[in-house]
């Protein structure tokens, strides 16, 4: 338990939030994608955040074991899940992906909802970046003890 652990916790959050922003950006970029490698329209994706130790007992145990790369209290993305909501059908008979009745399946993506999610992600990133700055200044002050 030292200041560098605090840095790596904040770093794990920065990385998780950046990945979340990437997924949101992919959702917004593919809001009109009707054709994918797997067939059918693009499916909206969501990230699931997870923290390694949940109980204080496991926290204390992990602290004594000193597991590298798995600091208790950090955050990581446990999985990226597909949104199960059905696609939006639009009547476009001339479209190459239209079905026999002339309907094209579009991904059910609401740009406003994605934008709000992105803003939340950016705010969380800013928060953790300021935590990194605070920890950095604390480390710098510890080094300053050595100076006269």
């Amino acid at each position, binding site marked *: *338990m*030292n*200041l560098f*652990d*605090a*840095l790596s*916790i*904040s770093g*794990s*959050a920065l990385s*998780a*939030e950046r990945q*979340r922003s990437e997924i949101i950006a992919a959702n917004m970029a593919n809001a009109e994608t009707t054709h994918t490698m797997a067939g059918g329209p693009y499916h909206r994706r969501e990230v*699931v*955040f*997870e*923290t390694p130790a*949940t109980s*204080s007992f496991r*926290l*204390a145990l992990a*602290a004594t074991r000193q597991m590298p790369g798995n600091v*208790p*209290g*950090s*955050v990581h993305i446990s999985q990226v899940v597909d949104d199960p909501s059905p696609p939006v059908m639009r009547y476009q008979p001339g479209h190459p992906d239209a079905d026999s009745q002339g309907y094209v399946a579009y991904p059910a993506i609401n740009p406003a909802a994605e934008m709000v999610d992105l803003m*939340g992600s950016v705010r*969380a990133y800013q*928060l*953790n970046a*300021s*935590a990194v700055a*605070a*920890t950095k*200044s*604390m480390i710098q*002050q*510890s080094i*300053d*003890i050595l100076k*006269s």
Partner: protein
Amino acid sequence: MTQPTPLLSTLETYLKLTNTRAQAISSNMANVDTPGYRTHDINFESELRRATAMAPMETADNTGTVHFAPVVREVPGLLERPDGNNVNLDREGLLLAESQLQYQLGVQLIKGQFHQILSAINGGN
């Protein structure tokens, strides 16, 4: 480690506790969007009292390092979101600023102690 003055070992404990608190705040901030995460923190005053009470008997037998592990607990009475997460950003931001200032204070006091020792070595010059 036994310190040259008793105040220095108290200040060392103070910095260690501030450090633990900063880490708890960092992990609360990191898990601001993790479903089911509960806010963790230490009770600074009671932990400092406990640590300073056990420090003299540890230094008496010259065993070296003081083995003191602060107790990290869940914080009660915070508003919980529907996803089971109860991290309050305002609280964490405020405590981060507070622990930064606490750390700065501890470092300044330690520097003052070392300056005093240095002044004694130099014969007050």
